[in-house]
């Protein structure tokens, strides 16, 4: 395993608070190892800022293994960077060249207000979830798990939708800042399972209503969301949501 070192010219979005005016700050990242993850590169930059007594770049991050959905930044115009099926924490510096300039911005959407630097407020997703993204089953009331057979294909499809990590890259990537991919993955996961049947219509109506209330844009089927999605949630989910919502609206009394 070789270890190439590189120097990079970062242009990082700095914003002191939600109301403050933001700007790009140019920062040199020196001696960056090609084996670092993108966030480790930022760790090193922050370490140097501390040594100079300057405020560090704030960014959300946690598991650093691509599953928690915390890390969220737009790198050279691409949410989570240039690679498909990759979160920022799993992006490695070997994807960049010595001397390259890298522009780092927060996810931008009115529904994801910036809190500080690259940190945004994605609580809109939680509010969408609570508007119907569940099955109403109280603890203790369940029958034996094998009483409800679920065909493997259906179960696999539901699983594929359920793997959404809720990072918001779909919103960041969409030219309309639409949350359609996220919401549709949630709706699909439960719509595909027999357990979700009872609340199927209310779920679609409630979650879509909340999605709209949060101020996300509408889907114009460009597919940028799915291309930016770290777990490659399929556009089929959006079609399913559209269907679910249409039929639910028709059935509504």
């Amino acid at each position, binding site marked *: 395993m070789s270890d190439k070192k590189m120097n990079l010219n970062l242009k990082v979005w700095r914003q002191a608070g939600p109301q403050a005016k933001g700007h790009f700050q140019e920062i040199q990242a020196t001696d960056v190892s090609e084996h670092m993850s993108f966030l480790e590169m930022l760790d090193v930059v922050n370490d140097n800022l501390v040594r100079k007594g300057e405020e560090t770049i704030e960014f959300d991050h946690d598991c650093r293994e691509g599953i928690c959905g915390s890390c969220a930044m737009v790198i050279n115009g691409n949410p989570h960077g240039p690679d498909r099926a990759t979160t920022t924490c799993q992006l490695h510096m070997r994807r960049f060249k010595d001397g390259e300039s890298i522009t780092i911005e927060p996810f931008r959407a*009115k529904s994801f207000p910036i809190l500080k630097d690259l940190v945004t407020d994605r609580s809109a997703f939680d509010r969408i979830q609570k508007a119907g993204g569940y099955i109403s089953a109280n603890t203790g009331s369940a029958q034996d798990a094998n009483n409800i057979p679920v065909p493997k294909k259906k179960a696999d499809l539901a699983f594929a939708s359920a793997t959404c990590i809720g990072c918001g890259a779909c919103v960041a990537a969409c030219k309309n800042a*639409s949350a359609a991919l996220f919401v549709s993955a949630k709706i699909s996961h439960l719509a595909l399972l027999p357990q979700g049947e009872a609340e199927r219509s*209310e779920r679609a109506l409630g979650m879509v209503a909340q999605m709209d209330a949060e101020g996300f844009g509408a889907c*114009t089927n460009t597919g940028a969301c799915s291309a930016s999605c770290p777990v490659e949630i399929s556009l089929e989910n959006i079609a399913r949501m559209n269907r679910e919502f249409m039929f639910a609206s028709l059935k509504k009394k």
Partner: protein
Amino acid sequence: MQNHSDNGSVKTTGWMSSTIGRKQLVGVTGLGLSGFVLTHMLGNMLILVGPQAYNQYAHALVTNPFIYIAEAGLIAMFLAHMFIALRLSWSNWNARDFKYAMRPSGAKRTTFTQRSLWAQGLLILAFTILHLITFKYGPNYTANYGGIEMRDLHKLVIEVFQEPVYVAWYIVALIVLGFHLSHGVGSSLQTLGIHHIRYQRHFKTVSIVYALIVTVGFLSQPIYVYFLRG
């Protein structure tokens, strides 16, 4: 930041006031209009046959008692498609208040066609208005076939299609319509919930082929008139 629950049962909105409902209206009207442009194009192909066939076809259309209903429907579809789409575009722009410094690249980029649907729509609107002024409300030449007097639209079309500026504008507008259809038809299907993991590729192809047929069909007419008929 809102952290507290706002206590209450799940709120819902009506289909018409939801983004998805509106998108579906744009989709349905879009598909309707796509159907119209296809039949319009096919009918107009009679220009290659000759003046009589062309004029009699036009005459049959305008004298059909259902024409007013059809026209009203078409206008309604057109206006609904346009207004709802523009309204959605407006809220879509507002969903992001601060633009990115750089555009996405590689797999994550979008095409110019996808980004400029609204502009294409506006251009098609301008074209449609001019188109109606030029033809529907243009000079009223007449022709007589077997004792029936009717408008000689054929003559008007030949006249117009011999003006290079008009032909150029017509070609540009029709190519834009083609791009609009190539995204729009497939996109409308998706919006209406029609998606199949196995055939999805073909939906895209159908959309592009549809757009090509309409565009090439329409373009063949001025090109025929301008270059071949002379």
